[in-house]
């Protein structure tokens, strides 16, 4: 999964609030000008001026006179009205049908949890947004058409209250709908994936597992077993997969840490050299999950039970690098090697052809905040990698590209203070996958002086010695150890995996993202329906949302540095059949054209902010790939939805205020 660089809330607010204010201001100016033009067309410039001034002068009073009781009354009425429409009921019926029969078609052996989560998120999002749009778009136009609005606006009700009351009412209703759907979805995903296996064999005991040849290390299926396996077998096939089951010998120091999971221990012996040997039953992961094995019964005829599926639902909390620097074979910082189109997102480091590792290209990831309390207890800390590989020769395609990482401390003053460097950890990259790489909490390494001399060697603690300074910073150095191959890296490609977020809460956060989208849909629907009829409101909203889903693409089109220039320049290039990349002759005309293009692009670019950028609010990709949604993202999503509610309320107020309620429509 590609993780974009995401700022924290305050950073985001600094730029986001500015954009918001600019949009608000330009909206106010444009609205006033438009209102004046319409009023002039109706009544002439003098009368027009006075009527626009009157509307603007009345606005602060109306906003200040807004009463919560009236908003509450309108909200309650909206809820009752929407419930009457039975849209909600129909939605539940469709959703129930999806959940009832959807499971039949959700088959993915590799990662079933992704398909399940994706399915419920997608289904909920589609249904909820549709319902939100329908009930919000129809309400006000229907009220005006039935003239029931007459008895409302002839009470001291402010236009703000009519708009906000509706947004609040429909928002609350669809929130309740979404909450129920989220709960059902959770149960559906959990129930759909939960399963258990039996051992293949005559009994559910150790006898079902065959002894492993200590030299060949093959299991009955013909695959390789773990290095320390003594017996191996397999489970029955359930949900399209089976697991390998092994009995392993786990050798421990008597004084050192002992196994955390005690339920799967068959026997415990003390070896001749004084070490403890545990024989444990383990189930190897398959299809993205595993099962806990439990051993019960008298010694010699223990029965082995396999528990419910576990490990499907993850909410990884990555500690991403703050900084990524790539150095080429000459040790100069740069953008990595250009390997073609791929280059844009990832930077590629060269496997080189020299044998001295110090001259290899390297990528340095710098992390901060590496505190032990953020990580699960255990002997190792997990680094996860999502590296890309670019091969200049195929060689043995089965063989993966070799790479290494080295951990280094970051001294406060690198010129004078020594630094710690761990031994390189070699690994094979698995492409297109999230690859876990356990790193021991105690690493052998050396202390190196700034001039390169080794001061001492020893075993150092990851958190105690490497992660130094008040910020607990650490550096991970990645090298490609295969000659003439390249490894692609981006800042998010190597991260420390802190202890997981609670999955249910992460699931809720995913639905909060849908909630934010839904609130925006409701707000826009209500705001547009103050001036448009229901069908036109729906069409306009849909167009806005389409633009919203495609904002990254549209903003790309509006990039002034793009080849071929802005709209006018592009048109001229098309008409004059100029090449896109040839720069035009600099004359007063081209200068003027470019200035106008800049202006047009800036205007169009700011318009794109009016469409809700749903990609920023859609957290389904985090859920499906098993990442925790960060609090910053969630806060920003909620801020965005509130900003839209505010804008929609102001827009709706002025539209409703200047609308002739009893006018012929």
């Amino acid at each position, binding site marked *: 999964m590609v993780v974009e660089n995401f700022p924290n809330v305050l950073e985001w607010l600094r730029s986001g609030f500015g954009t918001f204010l600019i949009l608000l201001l330009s909206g106010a100016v444009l609205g006033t000008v438009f209102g004046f033009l319409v009023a002039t*067309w*109706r*009544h002439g410039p003098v*009368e027009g001026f006075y009527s626009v001034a009157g509307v603007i002068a*009345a606005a602060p009073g*109306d906003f200040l*006179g807004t*009463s919560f*009781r*009236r908003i*509450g*009354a309108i909200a*309650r*009425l909206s809820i*009752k*009205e929407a419930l*009457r429409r039975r849209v909600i009921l129909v939605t539940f019926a469709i959703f129930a049908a999806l959940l009832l029969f959807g499971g039949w078609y959700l088959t993915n052996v590799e990662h079933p949890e992704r398909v399940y989560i994706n399915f419920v998120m997608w289904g909920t999002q589609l249904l909820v947004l549709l319902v939100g749009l329908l009930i919000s778009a129809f309400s006000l136009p229907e009220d005006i058409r*039935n*003239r*029931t*609005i*007459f*008895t*409302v*606006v*002839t*009470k*001291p*009700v*402010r236009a703000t209250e009519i708009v906000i009351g509706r947004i609040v009412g429909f928002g609350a209703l669809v929130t309740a709908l979404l909450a129920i759907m989220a709960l059902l979805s959770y149960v559906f995903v959990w129930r759909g994936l939960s399963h258990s296996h039996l051992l293949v064999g005559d009994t559910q005991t150790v006898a079902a597992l065959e002894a492993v040849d200590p030299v060949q290390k093959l299991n009955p299926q013909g695959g390789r077993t773990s290095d320390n396996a003594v017996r191996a077998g397999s489970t029955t096939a359930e949900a399209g997969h089976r697991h390998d089951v092994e009995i392993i010998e786990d050798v421990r120091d008597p004084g050192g840490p002992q196994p955390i999971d005690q339920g799967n221990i068959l026997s415990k012996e003390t070896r001749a050299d004084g070490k403890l040997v545990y024989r444990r039953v383990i189930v190897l992961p398959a299809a993205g999950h595993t099962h806990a094995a439990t051993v019960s019964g008298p010694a010699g005829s223990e029965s082995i039970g396999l528990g419910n599926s576990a490990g499907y639902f993850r909410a990884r909390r990555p500690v991403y690098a703050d900084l990524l620097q790539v150095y080429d074979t000459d040790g100069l910082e740069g953008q990595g090697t250009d390997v073609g189109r791929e280059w844009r997102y990832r930077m590629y480091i060269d496997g080189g052809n020299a044998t001295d590792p110090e001259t290899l290209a390297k990528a340095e990831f710098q992390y901060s905040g590496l505190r032990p309390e953020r990580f699960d207890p255990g002997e190792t800390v997990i680094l996860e990698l999502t590296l890309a590989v670019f091969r200049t020769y195929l060689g043995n395609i089965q063989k993966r590209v070799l790479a290494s990482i080295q951990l280094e401390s970051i001294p406060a003053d690198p010129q004078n203070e020594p630094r710690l460097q761990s031994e390189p950890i070699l690994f094979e990259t698995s492409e297109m996958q999230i690859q876990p790489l356990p790193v021991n909490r105690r690493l052998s390494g050396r202390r190196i002086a700034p001039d390169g001399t080794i001061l001492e060697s020893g075993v150092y603690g990851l958190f105690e010695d490497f992660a130094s300074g008040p910020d607990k910073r650490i550096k991970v150095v990645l090298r490609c150890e295969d000659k003439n191959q390249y490894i692609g890296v981006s800042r998010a490609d190597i991260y420390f995996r802190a202890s997981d977020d609670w999955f249910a809460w992460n699931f809720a956060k995913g639905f909060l993202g849908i909630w934010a989208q839904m609130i925006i849909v409701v707000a826009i629907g209500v705001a547009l329906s103050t001036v448009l009829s229901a069908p036109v409101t729906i069409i306009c909203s849909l167009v806005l949302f389409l633009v919203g889903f495609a904002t990254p693409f549209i903003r790309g089109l509006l990039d002034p540095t793009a080849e071929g220039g802005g709209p006018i320049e592009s048109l001229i290039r098309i008409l004059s059949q100029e090449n896109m990349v040839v720069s035009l002759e600099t004359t007063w005309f081209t200068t003027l054209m470019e200035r106008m293009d800049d202006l047009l692009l800036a205007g169009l670019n700011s318009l794109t902010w009016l469409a809700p950028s749903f990609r920023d609010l859609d957290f389904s990709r985090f859920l499906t790939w098993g990442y925790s949604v960060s609090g910053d993202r969630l806060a920003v999503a909620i801020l965005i939805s509130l900003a839209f509610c505010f804008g929609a309320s102001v827009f709706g107020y002025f539209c409703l205020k200047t609308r*002739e*309620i*009893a*006018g*012929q429509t």
Partner: protein
Amino acid sequence: MAAVTAEAKRKKLEQTNPDYNPDVVVETQNLTKVYRDFWGRQKVRALNALDLDVRKGEIFGLLGPNGSGKSTTIKLLLGLLFPTSGRALVFGKNADEVTKNERIGYLPEESYLYRFLNAEETLDFYGRLFDMPPKVRRERSRLLIEKVGLQHARRRQLREYSKGMVRRIGLAQALINDPDLIMLDEPTSGLDPLGTREMKDMILDLKAQGKTVIMCSHLLADVQDVCDRIAILYQGELKELGRVDSLLKISDETQVRFKGIPAAAHDEIRQVIERHGGEVLSMENPRTNLEELFLDIVRESQARPGHRSERARN
């Protein structure tokens, strides 16, 4: 030109109304409404240069055939429509100001109420719109439901109501805030004679409480019964304005009603009139009107259920 006619109309207004009261609740100045289509082309001139004053404590009737501008006037006064030119002032405030609604009650032409609410919910909803605290809301609702006689149907949804009942609850919602000015758009339309009479009684009752009432109707009898002053509109123009009693008085005719004299005396009376140069236009037994007859029958049936009316048998 329009200003001149407005001035003239105002003068006329003052002349025709000897008891001119400066305590003006509603005032329109040169109020004009032109309906236009989307492109701004004129479609209908619904109201033309209307000048009106409605004073505190009177029942003012707007009269006219369908499409004469009665409803348009009321909607302009409520801010539901915006004037093309001229001004509409209510309690001295512009008609498009929201705060004036605090003191206004409005019964629309057809009671445009939410049909999925019951009577109590309806009144509670409108009470909330006046920002009334819960206790006051409950008290007012109870009182008004009693007043309009809907206690038996307070928990039924309005969709199940008969037209008369909807009209009653419509009046109740117009009175929820104890308004000083009540605007009634065709208050008696759709009501049976009994309901009409009750509505008229309630309007008179409001007047007795010192409220100002503006009603528009094309049912002349209703207007005649309750209104103090009327304005007659035709095709958007004000045609007549004045007190009902002075407008309807036929000053060169005299009506005498007596009873208990023999038929022979009729000729004598006729001779007396002719001797004074008068002309007898009619001399007959007066008839009660159908409304009176109907109400009598209903009252009698209520008193003696299951019997045919004594009067009907005669």
